[in-house]
């Protein structure tokens, strides 16, 4: 009995809580924020869809001309603004926080700009989201209309009735009725009018929950299309930007090498030539001191040229320009032990991959001559299933692993920057086979 009474009291107090909640809900801030969200978001979606339809239609219509494709490439990232507006309203009014996608940063140059615009995954996702969400927003507006709008109209109906506004006039059985028509029944008597008002209260009490249920769908869609998919797209974007960074570094190093070759190195050689000519034309009356200074200057110039050459070959060996096979051939020729190079590459990998492959082989060959005790080595370069496979083998003492200071760990990290893999097969007593697998393109 005691327990029953306690249970009953608890039930009563729980019901009281729910009732209080329901009664308070329409006048608390959250439903108003949600209402504001629906009312703000829907028109922007309509504008966004109009923007998509018009710009894509015009772009497609003009596709045969020079401006069609650029127009589309410009329009696609442009849709991000509409989605961003909705995301920001969702964060501010609903507390639904979807992380911002990475901003659109087109590379310089018209063509790159156009290509980046067409490949803007965030932009295309916005286009899809806008089209889908337009349907949802129609539902949302309808929900607001039948709950909030009708609720308010019904609630205030007694006032409207008293003032004679919002009255329809129909004739039923020869009698003229003036009043609000609900389901074919004219509310033109005070009891009916008050009943409408009560119905309005009910609608208003229901409104926050109806909108919330609708927003559940809206949030789900947003998370799905802008959130989780956003993470996948972010990974794709990161992969792309990493590839761009890697290729950019390779291209920069290559450009520095070229600039040095045509610039500083050429000037140093020219300087040495001029000093040589100066030396050649010196008369017999030149002092010993001057001659010594000139000789010293010439030596400095020569040393400078040599050092520069050494430095450049450490950042971008010129032989790489002629392809990986040529560069590895030169590398093998310089190796302290004889190296057989077998290379069969149907297509040239990108510059960055060639550079990584080259310096990996250089390091592995250094390892062979320093640590293995082998008297020769083999370098194999093949392509398997679209991947570049590099194999450096020796018949030395083996026992190489990632942790015995042979630099293999660093090498693993380095090939990892392009999703490459390094495998060590080196039993004690040899032979050692190090296999590096790289993508052909970053």
């Amino acid at each position, binding site marked *: 009995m005691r327990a029953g009474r306690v249970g009953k009291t608890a039930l009563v107090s729980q019901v009281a809580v729910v009732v209080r909640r329901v009664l308070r809900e329409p006048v608390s801030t959250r439903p108003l924020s949600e209402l504001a969200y629906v009312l703000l978001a829907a028109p922007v979606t309509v504008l966004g869809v109009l923007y998509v339809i018009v710009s894509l239609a015009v772009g497609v219509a003009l596709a045969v001309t020079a401006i069609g494709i650029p127009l589309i490439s410009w329009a696609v990232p442009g849709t991000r603004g509409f989605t961003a507006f909705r995301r920001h309203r969702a964060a501010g009014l609903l507390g639904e926080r979807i992380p911002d996608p990475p901003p659109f940063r087109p590379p310089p140059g018209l063509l790159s700009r156009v290509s980046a615009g067409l490949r803007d995954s965030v932009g295309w996702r916005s286009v899809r989201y806008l089209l889908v969400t337009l349907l949802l927003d129609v539902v949302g507006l309808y929900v607001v209309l039948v709950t909030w709008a009708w609720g308010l109209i019904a609630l205030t109906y007694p006032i409207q009735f008293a003032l004679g506004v919002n009255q329809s006039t129909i004739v039923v059985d020869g009698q003229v009725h003036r009043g609000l028509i609900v389901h074919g029944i004219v509310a033109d008597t005070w009891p009916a009018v008050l009943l409408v008002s009560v119905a309005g209260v009910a609608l208003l009490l229901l409104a926050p929950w109806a909108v919330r249920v609708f927003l559940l769908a809206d949030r789900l869609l947003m998370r799905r299309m802008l959130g989780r998919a956003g993470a996948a797209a972010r990974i794709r974007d990161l992969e792309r930007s990493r590839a761009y960074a890697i290729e950019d570094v390779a291209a920069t190093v290559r450009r520095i090498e*070229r600039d040095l*070759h*045509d610039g500083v*190195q*050429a*000037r*140093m*050689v*020219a300087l*040495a*030539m*001029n*000093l*040589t*000519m100066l030396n*050649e*034309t010196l008369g017999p009356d030149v002092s010993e001191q001057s001659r010594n200074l000139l000789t010293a200057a*010439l030596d400095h*110039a*020569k040393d400078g*040229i*040599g050092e520069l*050459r050494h430095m450049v*070959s450490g950042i971008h060996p*010129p*032989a790489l*320009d*002629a392809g990986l096979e*040529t560069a590895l*051939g*030169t590398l093998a*020729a*310089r*190796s*302290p*032990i*004889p190296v057989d190079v077998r290379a069969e590459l149907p297509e040239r990998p990108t510059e960055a991959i060639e550079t990584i492959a080259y310096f990996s082989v250089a390091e592995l060959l250094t390892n062979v001559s320093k640590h293995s005790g082998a*008297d020769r080595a083999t370098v194999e370069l093949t392509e398997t299933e679209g991947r570049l496979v590099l194999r450096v083998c020796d018949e030395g003492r083996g026992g190489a692993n990632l942790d015995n200071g042979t630099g293999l760990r660093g090498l693993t990290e380095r090939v990892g920057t392009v999703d490459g893999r390094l495998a060590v097969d080196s039993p004690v007593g040899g032979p050692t086979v190090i296999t590096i697998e790289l993508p052909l393109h970053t």
Partner: protein
Amino acid sequence: MSVRIVIAEDTAILREGLAQLLAMRGHEVVAAVAEPVALLAAVADHRPDVAVIDIRMPPSHTDEGLRAALELRRANSGLGVLLFSQYVETRFVRELLADGSSGVGYLLKERVTDLDEFTSALDRVASGGTALDPEVVTQLFGSRTDRGLATLTPREREVLALMAEGRTNAAIARRLVVTDRAIEKHIANIFTKLDLTASEGDHRRVLSVLRYLDGR
């Protein structure tokens, strides 16, 4: 001896500097061009003794000079070809020497600073000899330590390096300040140790030495 020369070099300051330098030593620079097509035309027009060719030239700035040199050598017997580069690439050396080593050279650009050496290398190439940059030899040497080369004495190595540069016995003897006879003895020892058959003529031994060093 005045040598008639065509220069192909795309960097203007080096093209002009080289022409000036060679002129100072009484050589006749009959044409100085900036790219391979003009080089082929200039050689056809002027029939020079030697073409001094930069390896990296337009359009791709990789090995156009080498390609042009090989083409010129095939088309013009007796034309000396001196590659002139800021780098030594052993692969290029091998390609250059593949058709024989008579009248070919490969020198680093900075070698012009020793004008006597440079002009003598040029003369060698003009008269059908060989001139390989000491760097080529060092690189190849640096790489092969355990194939008979390890058994060479320092003096024999020195002699082999000079041989590979394309020098005659007399020139090597002068350089090392010893008699011709001593050099001949060194060379005989080298050939024995490297298991090479000695043969007549400077360029053939360069070739055999290089082939050996190259592991082919």
